[in-house]
């Protein structure tokens, strides 16, 4: 029998069967669609942002970035908030709440002034929502009183969060924009106004591609294009960085985090959890592959927990954070010289090319035998060669060499090393 792990986790006082939620986007636009997602295994949703008025959208509205033939390394999206009316959305929230009492219905809302925020908070709370998420972060709104323009302004974040908190009994999450230097500032503003959670990141303002025929950005909307939000795999590293900074900010200690940005696999999800998230949200990979991807997130994390002897997901939250330290505190006393396994080497010379052109010219190349050789005295231990070698386990970590006078009675075994390269 397949292993069954308890993935349940409490987020803002709400019991969730697992940490996997859909983020506010086209993947949770109405009750019928969301029903399919719940049946597939998603624990909850953040319903596509509900506004006072439905949006007027462009066609087409998406673009992707690619590398070689890998599609969707990143995704650009020009959709705004829900194109449906408040009344229609409220109706669907009621249906979902009745049909799925054990699923978590988070509702994302966005107003353009205090009055609208209040109206939305009241209506959606009355409809039966479990959590409210405040969208301070959509970068492609046609109104500058909405979206990331608000999220970049801590005073407005405070004001609107306060208005919502005063008009609901539900836990409130403020969704942050990454189009900002210090995310801690709007996050603190939201917290001081009463938000209990922060979610990050919304999409990054982008121009993905230029159409070389029409000479405009993509997608091409009648010959023109606009800056809009970028998401997917490419943004995960940026999201993890923001999450790390929020999690390490002591003033935000009481705030719970929901991680968003490029999550496709259980490994992506666990990375956010290890950096302090109690909840993760997904859209882009669902747009590409469908709701079914949650199955591999659930079993993938279960196997990971089984293999590491972990019983509760709680035990994993934030446990990698202590190992992320300022650059000035890193141990700079040694070099790890790579080792090339010539039995495995196929003689492509990629390590030699990259070491010469991109590092320290520390690999010698024998053109006759097509063999690379590390020149120990020139090698700085950067491991670029390990990152370009196309053969599994051909180049691995080798000898640890301590810099002059900096060994301090340690042996090579005392140096903790990366076990797996990609």
């Amino acid at each position, binding site marked *: 029998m397949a292993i069954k792990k308890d993935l349940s986790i409490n987020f803002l006082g709400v019991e969730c069967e697992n940490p996997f939620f859909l983020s506010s986007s086209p993947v949770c636009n109405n009750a019928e669609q969301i029903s399919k997602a719940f049946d597939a295994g998603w624990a909850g949703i953040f319903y596509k942002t509900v506004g006072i008025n439905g949006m007027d959208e462009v066609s087409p509205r998406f673009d992707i970035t690619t590398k070689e*033939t890998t599609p969707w390394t990143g995704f650009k999206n020009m959709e705004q908030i829900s194109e449906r009316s408040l009344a229609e959305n409220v109706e669907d929230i009621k249906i979902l709440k009745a049909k799925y009492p054990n699923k978590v219905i988070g509702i994302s809302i966005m107003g353009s002034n205090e009055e609208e925020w209040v109206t939305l908070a009241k209506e959606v709370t009355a409809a039966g929502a479990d959590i409210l998420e405040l969208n301070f972060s959509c970068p492609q709104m046609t109104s500058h009183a909405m979206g990331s323009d608000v999220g970049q302004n801590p005073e407005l974040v405070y004001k609107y969060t306060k208005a919502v908190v005063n008009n609901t009994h539900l836990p409130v999450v403020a969704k942050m924009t990454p189009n900002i230097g210090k995310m801690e500032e709007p996050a603190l503003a939201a917290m001081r106004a009463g938000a209990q959670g922060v979610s990050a990141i919304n999409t990054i303002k982008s121009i993905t591609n230029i159409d070389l025929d029409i000479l405009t950005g993509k997608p091409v909307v009648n010959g023109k294009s606009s800056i809009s939000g970028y998401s997917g795999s490419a943004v995960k590293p940026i999201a993890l960085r923001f999450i790390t900074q929020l999690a390490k900010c002591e003033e935000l200690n009481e705030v719970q985090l929901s991680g968003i940005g490029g999550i496709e696999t259980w490994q992506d999800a666990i990375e956010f959890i290890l950096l302090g998230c109690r909840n993760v949200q997904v859209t882009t990979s669902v747009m590409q592959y469908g709701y079914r991807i949650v199955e591999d997130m659930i079993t993938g994390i279960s196997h990971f927990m089984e293999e590491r002897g972990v019983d509760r997901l709680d035990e994993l939250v934030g446990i990698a954070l202590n190992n992320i330290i300022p650059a000035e505190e890193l141990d700079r006393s040694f070099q790890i010289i790579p080792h090339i396994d010539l039995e495995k080497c196929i003689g492509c*010379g990629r390590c030699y090319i990259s070491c010469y052109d991109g590092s320290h010219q520390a690999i010698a190349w024998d053109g006759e035998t*097509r063999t690379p050789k590390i020149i120990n005295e020139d090698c700085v231990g950067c491991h670029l060669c390990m990152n370009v070698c*196309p*053969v599994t386990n051909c180049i691995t970590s080798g000898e640890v060499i301590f810099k002059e006078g900096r060994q301090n009675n340690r042996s090579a075994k005392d140096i903790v090393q990366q076990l797996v390269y990609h």
Partner: protein
Amino acid sequence: MEQRTIMEYEPEQLEPYDFRRAMEEASRCLLCEDAPCTKGCPAGTDPAKFIRSIRFKNTSGAAETIRENNILGASCALICPQERLCQAACSRCGIDRPIEIKKLQQFAMEHERKSGRKYLNKEKTYTGKRVACIGAGPASLACAAELAKQGVEVTIYDEHEEAGGMLRYLIPPYRLPEQVINQDIDQLVKLGVHFELNHHVSTEELETLKAEFDQVFIGAGMWESKTLPIPGSTLDGVVMAINFLNEAKKNHGQIDRLGSVVIIGGGDVAMDCAATSKLLGAENIYDVFIEALDEAPAVQSEKEFVFKLGVPMISEFKPVEFIGNGKVERVRFEHIKNGSTMEIVADTVILAVGQKLCDVAKSWTEEDGLFIGGDMVNGGDTVVRAVKEGKEAAAKIIESFRG
């Protein structure tokens, strides 16, 4: 789904990769240092460079590299025995399987065809110099192109109606469609090379040409068939491979009923005969050769193709007699080792046991002040090899101009 086997004798086109498929394959390429594939190409087509161009979205650059190095780039993309040349050298073999280099070359050449771009330019370095190339096969075409690129005025003489030599008259259209040959020949036309076709050059005329031109290159092909010195080889129905393939091609596959066919030979030409017979509707086809199956000289992919078409190959039997009364009826074989004998009923016997130069061509040598390449030098090898020799001869001719 099993990969589709071509079932048409004369397809208009052999389906090329589209951009995505090409990028997928180019992305498998390891982009080696001092790439072995490039060293493995006799013609110097430089696959490492053109694959890198495809990988970095520069398809025009890829086509340009191929054209600069190999005037028969489009044809070679389809017929080159890559598995024993560039692909055999591919580093990726150490991981899984080599890059499909020919398919990438075909992709770049298809880009050239569709775009109608011309990548080769005529420089004015040697204007005023004139060279005659005898034969319009691969070696001559390669020599002519190299010279024309440097401004030399080149005239190609050939006794056939059309240029291309073996490409045009021997290699079956399901391997090399007409339009691909034309695409290559067009490059020479664009370079201003003159073609004197339907023009047989005799030994006497050769003397005139030597006087008239600054240099003369000879790239005569092996157009004469070898025969078997066994009884019955002059019976009706016993045909030579070259004649059979040529006849089929010239008539677009509309030839007299073949009936039951026995092909004798284990080389690429024999495989071409076997597949052509099958595609043209012959009834019982057997390919019999003297070598062991793995030692028969045809490239593996051609053997596999014939096998996929359902033609049985019988190895290690040699023919000892063609039996019939005026017309061949049966062929008798003996096993080369164990003394077994067999007879196969045949309405048509195709002899694919090798080719040779005609006597006149044999008498033309470098000692007569001629430049020579192709079959005359290599004894009948691949098209890429002929291209290499044509290019080398052109380099020697240019050297002679430098004095």
